[in-house]
């Protein structure tokens, strides 16, 4: 599976690149977002801030959006998921708007929500994962208008927030599979298999 990894220029793509490669994917890191238009499969990594990331994607927003909604498999991680929504309380820029809804500040005493927490999900991408603990590091979470797009949830300080999303062949995680040990590697493996079946 050939995967294009969007590089927004802020740093650490090692974790996600090596995790995808460990599962047999060949990863092409692209810093010219125009190249994403030719992608067979895209991963939007979870590093950076909302506005800075969108600055690079904005010129191609509509066309990337069309491609994703017409069936190109993609995975967003953390901020990479938040930019798929219409907007975020973290920034001023519009998002890609693949998911109707927005990213809002967590309602909690301790922010960021940082560490390992459980994702309750019945999605096939969770197949083969026993404990379903994943690594989180975020201050905002996504609220889609259409609740059917929520495929997993997580409890934090007594509140439940959506942590796993899907529309068309686009998946989004609030957690970081690339830093979540064996559970994370398994979900990435499942995603790669899913993407292969899409083509």
């Amino acid at each position: 599976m050939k995967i294009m990894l969007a590089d927004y220029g802020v740093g650490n793509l090692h974790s996600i690149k090596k995790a995808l490669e460990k599962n047999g994917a060949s990863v092409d890191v692209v810093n010219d977002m125009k190249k994403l238009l030719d992608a067979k499969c895209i991963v939007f990594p979870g590093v950076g801030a909302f506005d800075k990331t969108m600055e690079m994607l904005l010129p191609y927003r509509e066309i990337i959006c069309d491609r994703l909604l017409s069936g190109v498999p993609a995975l967003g991680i953390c901020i990479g998921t938040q930019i798929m929504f219409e907007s975020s309380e973290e920034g001023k820029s519009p998002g890609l708007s693949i998911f109707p809804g927005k990213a809002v500040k967590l309602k909690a005493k301790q922010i960021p929500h940082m560490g390992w927490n459980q994702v309750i999900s019945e999605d096939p991408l969770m197949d083969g994962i026993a404990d379903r603990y994943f690594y989180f590091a975020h201050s905002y979470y996504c609220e889609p208008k259409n609740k059917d797009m929520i495929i997993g949830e997580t409890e934090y300080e007594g509140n439940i927030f959506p942590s796993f999303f899907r529309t068309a062949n686009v998946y989004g995680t609030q957690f970081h599979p690339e830093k979540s040990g064996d559970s994370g590697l398994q979900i990435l493996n499942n995603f790669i298999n899913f993407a292969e079946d899409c083509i």
Partner: protein
Amino acid sequence: MLTKRIIPCLDVKNGKVVKGVNFLGLKDVGYPPELAEGYSNQGADEITFLDIAASLEYRQTTLDLVSETAKRVFVPLTVGGGIRTAQDMHAALSAGADKVSVNSAAILNPDIITESAIDFGRQCVVVAIDAKRMKDHWEVFSHGGTKPTGLDAVEWAQKAQDLGAGEILLTSVDADGVKKGYDLPLTNAIADEVTIPVIASGGCGSIEHIYEVFTKTSASAALAASIFHYNEHTVGEIKTYLRERGVAVR
């Protein structure tokens, strides 16, 4: 439910993980990437890599070692020691660190916290604080816990949070290396005042000490070194012990 984190710490000097009491009698205990991989396989929630020599001539060697370590672990890797500028942070992140910890540099130039939080996101900015008990407060010490700074540790932690820190790595200079347990009053003083997660560090000598810091303070994570390096306990054993006593762990 968010679980409590267990973080093995690698104190690295000249390419080797070392361990000593109060920085004296340093003894080699292994090759960082190998130890990190082993701890990750045991179920460590994160790995912290601190370059305790942090001299300029070793900078590239250290980055290579970070990169080799990052290749072998699939849990978050925090790198610290000798980080002086936002460019140093970028270099560490580019080498494969997921978070970077700053200590003395943030004391000299607090703006580095804000700059790096804006550039890289606050979740990857860890402010490390070495605190020592005075008569009626805790004072921040810089340069590996050797230089008094005149800063009050609680106030500095709050300031670091306001400037954009995502996490505090709190080490008790008094407890460090003594293996008599974490400094619980210090941990409470800081963890009760800030809203960002606090990692307790310094003094862990037994499995009970980890239980104690999680039940008697609101620390989010416990960092330890020798208990792992000398094979006294595996991460798995510690987690079983905590789980049986009602502490939520992964």
